[in-house]
């Protein structure tokens, strides 16, 4: 087991990692004192942190060299030892069902369980996200089927290690990037899927599906309620965030002026809200309205940022497209406190991630960025049970052709006035692009979750077994040789070309607030 426990005082700025927070030495005794003292030293106050990073490709798949990208993660809140994940990984036997990754030991070891209908022999599913109900032990998944084009299936299983295929709850045509969130309330699971509805009238494609129960899938809500006069659609990423009180936020990009595809799109960043589990047949997601003109337009949905430039369909950072990247998270113990991250910028020189915060339920937002991360993509936010915010992203560094992807997890207790930065992985941007033919070697998203005080996440990256690429260590299940920095096939001898693999991580803080 690879399990690194150390003081965060080890995180120092170096020429290689200039963004790492500068820290003073912090010994255990001082760290203990910091628990009872105001955080005069933010570094000591961070105490110790346990970081686990695991390459998820199973040993029996050691020979694979595919692009297992765009990962997603589900941790069972009722039993955090049970974790499931997804990536573009096909069924190893070429069967009819695509696999999910399953772990029953808290992410230390992983297997593939082929139970998702519609396997594409090269990629498994197309887009896929998954979550557990918070108390039900039921795993839900929203997929674009691998055996069709833009077809959504919402699926469930009562036992994620069972051999029985997942049961289909909802089936829709014309769907892009389904993104699922779930919560259990009074013994009933409520499942929400944000997606781009390519069949929507008038191009108001941003939608949230409300399959509140298996028996009664409600009609989707189209949450972009402003009249559309251009573009004929919005961006594909629609992200819901659920609070147990019944408050549901959803964030999306509203395209307002479109270039010839591919190109740069003028974009508003919009947040909508519903306060009653979006259960109303009419009027769902209209709880947030802008002020009437001239302060706003009086319409549902607050525009957190307007007329931003977002490159869509073009390779912007290294070999990676970065259009339509957005994430939203609500504090589980304060439904008014919500964080939003997105990426914009017309080109590589200007593209950056932005983080904003609202303390009044999305009515008003911080006017300036809490964090701005240049040359970064795939933002994912989560808030743990202590109100600590986690911010996962992947940042391109260096100059072509020697660029590298760094995967960061930042955590803050004070809205990024101070923060700590863990670099989980950094490796060359040299694999997964298929000689320049694949524009999304990392995928269009990764995932950060908080279960109680712990942060869990998944990202995809260059799988070269080099200890220097993993500042906090790593465990591989597939056969590797760290001395020669080679991947090895199932026979533990034949060399395998490096590629893109999914990596699970868990970060546990010892610090009390």
């Amino acid at each position: 087991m690879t399990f690194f426990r150390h003081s965060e005082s080890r995180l120092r700025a170096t020429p290689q990692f200039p963004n790492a927070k500068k820290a003073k030495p912090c010994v255990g005794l001082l760290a203990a004192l910091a628990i009872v003292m105001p955080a005069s030293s933010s570094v000591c106050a961070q105490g110790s942190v346990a970081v686990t990073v695991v390459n998820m490709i199973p040993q029996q798949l050691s020979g694979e060299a595919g692009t297992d990208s765009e990962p997603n993660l589900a941790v069972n809140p009722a039993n955090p030892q049970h974790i499931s994940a997804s990536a573009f990984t096909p069924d190893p036997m070429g069967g009819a069902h695509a696999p999910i990754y399953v772990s029953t030991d808290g992410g230390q070891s992983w297997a593939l369980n082929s139970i998702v209908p519609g396997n594409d022999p090269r990629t498994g599913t197309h887009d896929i996200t998954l979550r557990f109900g918070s108390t039900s032990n039921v795993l839900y998944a929203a997929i674009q089927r691998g055996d069709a084009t833009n077809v959504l299936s919402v699926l469930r299983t009562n036992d994620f290690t069972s051999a029985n295929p997942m049961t289909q709850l909802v089936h829709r045509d014309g769907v892009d990037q389904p993104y699922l969130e779930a919560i259990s309330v009074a013994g009933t699971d409520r499942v929400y899927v944000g997606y781009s509805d390519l069949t929507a009238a008038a191009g108001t494609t941003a939608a949230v599906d409300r399959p509140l129960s298996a028996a009664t899938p409600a009609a989707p809500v189209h949450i972009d309620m402003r009249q559309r006069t251009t573009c004929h659609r919005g961006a594909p990423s629609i992200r819901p965030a659920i609070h147990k009180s019944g408050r549901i936020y959803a964030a999306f990009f509203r395209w307002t002026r479109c270039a010839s595809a591919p190109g740069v799109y003028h974009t508003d960043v919009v947040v909508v809200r519903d306060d009653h589990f979006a259960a109303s047949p009419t009027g769902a997601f209209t709880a947030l309205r802008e002020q009437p003109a001239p302060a706003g337009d009086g319409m549902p949905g607050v525009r957190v940022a307007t007329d931003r430039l977002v490159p869509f369909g073009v390779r912007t950072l290294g070999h990676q497209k970065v259009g339509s990247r957005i994430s939203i998270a609500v504090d589980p113990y304060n439904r008014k406190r919500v964080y939003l991250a997105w990426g914009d910028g017309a080109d590589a020189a200007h593209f950056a991630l932005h983080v904003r915060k609202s303390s009044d339920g999305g009515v008003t937002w911080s006017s300036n960025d809490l964090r701005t991360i240049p040359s970064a993509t795939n933002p994912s936010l989560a808030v743990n049970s202590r109100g600590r915010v986690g911010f996962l992203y992947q940042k391109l560094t260096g100059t072509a052709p020697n660029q590298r992807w760094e995967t960061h997890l930042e955590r803050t207790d004070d809205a990024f006035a101070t923060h700590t930065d863990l670099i989980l992985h950094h490796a060359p941007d040299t694999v997964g692009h298929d000689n320049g033919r694949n524009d999304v070697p990392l995928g269009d998203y990764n995932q950060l979750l908080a279960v109680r005080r712990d942060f869990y996440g998944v990202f995809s990256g260059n799988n070269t077994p080099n200890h220097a690429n993993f500042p906090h260590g790593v465990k591989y299940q597939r056969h590797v040789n760290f001395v020669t920095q080679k991947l090895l096939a199932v026979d533990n001898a034949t060399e395998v070309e490096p590629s893109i693999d999914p990596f699970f991580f868990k970060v546990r803080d010892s610090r009390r607030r």
Partner: protein
Amino acid sequence: MYIRYLLIFLGLMVLMDTRDATGASFEELVEQSQFVFKGTVTKLNAATLPQIRATASTIVVKVDEVVHAPPATMEDYRGKEVTVLLERPGTVRTGEQFVFFTRSWMLGSSIAVREVGRTEPESDVSITRRRVAEVHAKVADNKLQNRLTDAELVVAGRVSAVRPAPENIRQGSVSEHDPEWWEAVIQIESVLKGQINEPNLVVLFPSSRDVMWESAPKFREGEEGTWLLRRERMRGLPTTHEYFTALNPRDFHSTDQIDRIKRLVR
């Protein structure tokens, strides 16, 4: 009278030989399976992966001979133990040997497969291997024949040019799964199905390596082969009716398959 009974008995023997306990024929078993192997039951109520709870339905089987396996992943599994999820628990004993017909379930530190059916092993596993291969060839032919039946036009020829599709086609598909439509101009050498009066035709194909289009055939100048073409309605293509597509991996075949296609096209 006795001859009639003898014929009935022989007929039953033939049926017993080709059907397993579930009643599935040998062909059906092969068609539903991805991993076929001769194995010996070593443990009952057991499993080889920590993610699997052992039950009366899970057994451990030592692989004695691989009859058929997916390429690259499981070809060399002889001598290893795997978990088998039985169709019906309690129907095997340790030490018994069968040919297991299985499909994928779980793959981790070991593998687990789901039983489709099982038969008594033949004296020589190479006989079973040959029979399985014959069924696979027949199944592949059936699948190709279905594509041929659905195709509007089947032509053999050569790609004389490839180029980006017209602007209105490419702009119609604004998506993170943008197919990045290109055109391949096919110089027709022979028409195997359908009618076309022109010496050339244009096939629309996705040049994108996005997951949604990864499996679709891509074409390059000078490429020769046989195309199974249809006009499909694709979202975002305003002039789809003018374009043929070959989006399924079975829709393009290299020149060495021409005789097989001629045999199957009717």
